[in-house]
């Protein structure tokens, strides 16, 4: 699968872009991009950095840069670093050499916990990707070892990987990953690479500096709200004032807006800027006809709380997760806590959706077709 991403698709200049040269992966070229190149080697020698794709998750540059693609969105929970840690552990590279970038939107980067959907939420990043990323890191390590063994004309069994290099046990000679990457990328990935024993983990379960923090103390971090693409429009939304209500008649498109859209329980208005969309939303707010069910009058926090209490006391419990024999363990427990927690129903603050990095869209169609087919969806996928 090849995902073509053009430089023109990106407004934020720090974003890297990659050019896939062949279906199924192969060589990726990095063009002196800030996230992929390291000036100490590449700039000094004026040699273009060649970045080799070892597998879906790992790119290794001729400048020894290790770039790990991360399928989850980092919204502050640390997924960018946590998932990179898993790969780096098995890949046998030093944490200080690792860069992590958000993967493009593609089925390749989906989370097994969501059936392959590229979704971030529910504390599913590490447990969803864990096995796949360990295997990917281990497979890449084995391919690099094999590439080194081939280069030396010896058996891979007398070679080992450590700190971004492959060492041969007899002469102690080494070859770096940066040198080996291009040939390693051409090797078939091993199906069942040996995984590191948890007792030997260097990175997993250990505190490491998070990779996303430097950009978050100097204003350079890119959030969903920062993305601007050519021809982009902005929508503002007016919700039905009551739960369960629906829009029965759309208002005229307000002046300064380009469209109004009936979303059922809300109406969106589309304009060419945030300001104009907000102005239009305010202008049409009183002109939307809502059908509000009579039962809506009984919906309030006190009623919801009462209903929750009744369900806790008399309803049928939904079991979210069971481990071990709960009733047997409770029967012999020294102390049993019987507590009920409640929390009010609160609206999710709207700005939260802006604080995750944007997921790169896949182009839905080439230009030249009808405009409907050329839409892009940029999403800061925060839940």
């Amino acid at each position, binding site marked *: 699968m090849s995902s073509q991403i053009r430089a023109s698709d990106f407004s934020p200049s720090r974003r890297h872009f990659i050019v896939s040269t062949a279906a199924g992966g192969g060589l990726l070229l990095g063009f002196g991009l800030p996230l992929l190149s390291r000036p100490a080697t590449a700039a000094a020698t004026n040699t273009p950095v060649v970045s080799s794709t070892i597998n879906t998750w790992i790119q290794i540059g001729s400048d020894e840069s290790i770039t790990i693609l991360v399928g989850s969105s980092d*919204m*502050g*929970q*640390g997924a960018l670093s946590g998932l990179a840690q898993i790969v780096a552990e098995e890949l046998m590279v030093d944490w200080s050499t690792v860069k992590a970038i958000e993967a493009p939107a593609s089925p390749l980067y989906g989370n097994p916990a969501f059936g392959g959907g590229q979704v971030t939420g529910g504390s599913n990043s590490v447990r969803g990707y864990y096995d796949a990323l360990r295997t990917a890191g281990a497979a890449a390590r084995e391919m690099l070892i094999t590439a080194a063994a081939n280069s030396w004309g010896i058996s891979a069994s007398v070679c080992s990987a450590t700190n971004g290099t492959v060492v041969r046990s007899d002469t102690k000679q080494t070859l770096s990953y940066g040198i080996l990457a291009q040939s390693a990328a051409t090797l078939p990935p091993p199906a069942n690479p040996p995984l590191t024993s948890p007792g030997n983990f260097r990175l997993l379960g250990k505190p490491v*500096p*998070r990779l*996303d*923090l*430097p*950009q*978050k*103390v*100097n*204003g*350079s*971090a890119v*959030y969903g709200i920062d993305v601007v693409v050519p021809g982009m429009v902005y929508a503002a939304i007016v919700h039905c004032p009551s739960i369960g209500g629906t829009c029965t008649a759309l208002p005229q498109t307000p002046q300064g807006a380009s469209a109004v859209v009936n979303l059922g329980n809300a109406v969106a208005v589309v304009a060419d800027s945030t300001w104009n969309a907000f102005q239009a939303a305010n202008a049409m707010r009183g002109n939307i006809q809502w059908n509000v069910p009579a039962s809506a009058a009984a919906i309030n926090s006190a009623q919801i709380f009462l209903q929750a209490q009744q369900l806790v006391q008399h309803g049928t419990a939904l079991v979210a997760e069971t481990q071990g024999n709960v009733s047997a363990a409770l029967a012999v427990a020294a102390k049993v806590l019987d507590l009920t927690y409640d929390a009010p129903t609160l609206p999710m*603050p709207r*700005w*939260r959706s*802006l*604080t*995750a990095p944007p997921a790169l869209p896949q182009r839905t169609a080439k230009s030249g077709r009808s405009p409907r087919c050329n839409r892009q969806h940029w999403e800061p996928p925060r839940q």
Partner: protein
Amino acid sequence: MLVDGQAQRSCDMDVGDAAGRNVTAIEGLSPDSSHPLQKAWIVEQVPQCGYCQSGMIMAAVDLLAQNPHPRDADIADAIDNICACGTYQRIRAAIHRVANGG
């Protein structure tokens, strides 16, 4: 951001009110993220989503200019910015780190 050295919320200020005044945003704090607060923010691993942290750092710049050795209560009084991730404990730690010499 700092307006004539004082922390101001950019979201709460008309552009016209900045005319003729000295404005410093997070990007202007240092050319290379070398300001002591920026370094302390990394050492203490302060940010999570990071969205509020530019404002937090600029507010801390203002606070330390007025009070080089703030107590926790001084920090709570001076910086009422909101962090939805809840990084307040590490923000305090980072400010104390700078107050104590980095």
